[in-house]
């Protein structure tokens, strides 16, 4: 099982949207066109009444998991530049050991 996937430790995602631009640069994409990743903000009130902001990078149809870069032994552009280091790209097998213990995380598969 050497399928690649993206583990998103989103509790630490600051919502800076650097990943979006990293992808745009990598694919020299025209501004405004659908990029490989789009960050969504959620503002929730917790049961305690406290405000809680969650940012989730959503990988779109346009994401190719940086196949070209990966072939060259590089990490995907968004993964390298993520300001909070919350994107982990690896094989599904390896990712199992990288799932954070005490918080929720997302696993994005290539499909």
């Amino acid at each position, binding site marked *: 099982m050497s399928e690649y996937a993206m583990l998103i430790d989103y509790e630490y995602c600051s919502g800076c949207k*650097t990943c979006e*631009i990293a992808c745009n640069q990598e694919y020299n994409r025209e*501004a405004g066109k659908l990029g490989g990743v789009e960050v969504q903000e959620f*503002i929730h009130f917790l049961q305690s009444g406290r*405000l809680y902001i969650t940012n989730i990078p959503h990988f779109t149809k346009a994401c190719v998991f940086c196949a070209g870069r990966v072939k060259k032994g590089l990490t995907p552009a968004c993964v*390298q530049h*993520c*300001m*909070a280091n919350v994107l982990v790209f690896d094989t599904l097998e390896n990712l199992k050991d990288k799932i954070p213990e005490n918080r929720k995380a997302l696993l994005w598969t290539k499909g």
Partner: protein
Amino acid sequence: MKNDGVKIIKTTTWSPGPGCHGGCGILVHVKDDKVIKVEGDPDHPWNQGRLCSRCLSMTQYMYHKDRLTKPLKRVGERGQGKFEPISWDEAFDLIEKKMKQIRQDHGPESMIFHQGTGRDIGGWISMLAYAYGSPNWMFGLSGISCYTPRLMMMSITQGDFAVVDAAQWHEKRYDDPEYEIPETVTIWGQNLPATCPDGFFGHWYVDLMKRGTRLMVIDPRCTWIASRAKLWLQLRPGTDAALALGFIHVMIKENLVNMTFIEKWTNAPFLVRTDTPEPILLRETDLAPSGKSTNFVAHDPVSNEFVIWDSDNQTYSRKDTTPSMDGEFTISLTDGTRIPVKTVWRMYKENVEEYTPQKVSRITWVPEDKIVQGARMYAKSSPSALHWGLPIDTIPSTIPTSQAVNHLWCLSGNLDNPGGNAIARYAYDVVTYPYHSGGSILSLPPEVAEKRIGINDYGPIKDFRAWAQPDKVLEQIFTKKPYEIKGMWIQTANPLACTGMEPQKWHKAIKQLDFTVCVDLFMTPTAMLCDVILPAATFLEKDSLKAWWVPLQAIKKVVEVDECKSDIEINLELSKRFMKDFPYDNTRDLFDSLLKSAGITYQQLCDNTWMIPPKGHSSRPYYRHEKGLLRADGKPGFRTPSGKIELFSSWLEKWQLAPMPYHEEPPYSPVSTPDLFKEYPLILTTGRRMGPFFHSEHRQIPWLRAQQKEPVLEIHPDTAQKYGITHGQKVCVENWLGKITVKALVTPVIHPDIVMAEHGWWFPEKEGAEPSLFGVWDVNVNQLIPMGHEGKGGLGSPIKSMLCKVYKAKG
């Protein structure tokens, strides 16, 4: 070079280009002399491979169709937008002729050298100003309300600047065995992940959180980082001093201060005269005519005698004394009069007595229990680090405010300790951005330096920073007193859209001058008004260097873009024309000379790209006050007049300002102007940070602009409902000074009684010629903020604590 013809060059950043205060290490991909990609350098300790949106957009920035690529000369009326390209020779000749004429007819001081926010310009613009002979080098933000007040206050309190230690002095960063992860970081007024703080990488706090650091966030808004904090204190804008004093009150009451540190390193034991109208430090000269006014007095409890603190020798006259910390005494002066004195510590405690959690809660809107919790969380953590932001500067009472916050790390002993607030110096003492005229590349004769605007009005302006006071400059342009201002050199600044409060006045001022030059990368509302416009290079098109604070690093010229020239080369060429024996032939000579204290040449720096001072160097932590690494004489202690951390400040005393911190209401607030508040019932705060943009820059960069198309006003859902405003609607924000129209961002992150606006907006895609000026007047929130409200020391202004009303825009 790889076989695809792509060269990869390792360099580092500093404005212009990303705009930001920089520091990141990058790998630039170049093909056929063109930058095709910019990536983070995984080997650089600062960013460790990461890179934010602005540097990742450099290709769109450098090769933008609207970039200024040739010098321009105005041919139409000012503001009409009619320019024609000229050669560099023509531009230099024209500037030389015009500026020499002004110098001859009106004196060099009638030219203002106007810069924008920090970054790399300080050294080069002061060089040009001084080569020309003008003392009027200026940053145009009212009250110089950006970091300077905090830097000033840190300098006079502990002799040096201090910043959070996020392991930036270690190549291995958090893994260095000398480093300790802060137990708590208090983030006071900054939305770090969205900002570009000076000398700091905002996401270091995420690194620290992952390693166990808890956060306390003090902010009127619940930003993402505030929502992740263990404790979030939602304070009223402009009341930061009260909150800090409330913390200090609790820390002293609950015995959470570090008495060993305070006794040893601060001037807490010094005696203060209370017979004078204002309390002042007792000096040796008060006791003996032969004494020195720089020596202070303390009380020895064992002998019940008074001892002299010798500031030169850093010793007490009785070597084995442990002076009294707390007490009141009577002492005889030279003439025999007996006067009452108290220790600084006693006075200090009395001074904070009134700031009970109850009172502070009333002032700040922060609940009492949270004030107590916050004080405990800060003081009980070890190490505990405190990061402060711009709101500390953007109030007229910035001096007591920054003093109070600075005292927190002094009272808890979190100074120059691993994981606390480390003393930050220019790496290897290389000055790329001078503060005092002493640190600048050239110096001015005293009779010229004396003409600097504001120097006679304000002590801190005279003694601390070599800038002209901007509120006074603007005033002087109109009053023409004591002398006329005739011209302005504007570089890295856009006062019409960004740094100018009451930009209407700056607009008028700039237009009425005889000669103005603007150096920039794009046409801006400000450049539109100028006579000559010079196209500047980005950081990838110039050689430069940086030491703010660490590492010392090289910025390398990677490519050229059309005729753009580096700020340094522009200023060097003109400096040669203005000054007969200008000492540097070219930028290499200049850099080599700046690098003397590092013992290397610019070429060697380029070979290394970046360098961190070795352990034991005075520009690297820790505990340098103990090791005698801070003072010129090599003695333990600090670089202050007494050598101690001055909780009761002798500098403030000298400037006739209150020597200890206090709270002062913002000039416009529900408390100070209740009548005005009835008409303008919302507190207007500004400067909401936007990830893709740096201040007024980047609005023309397609990838970045796609992330945010237009300016917004944050407004709470309850407030929005009250005024019938819905999310996304256009709203007018108005007060007695002006009005703007922006989009409502209805969000619970903001307090219901506060609205948060964005600064720096203009629309590069709109009509540039007057009256439009790229639509700046529709959206520039500074139109609602006054000039001339600088604080008592000439520093601070009410930028983040104004009043306004908000209503639905018509149509």
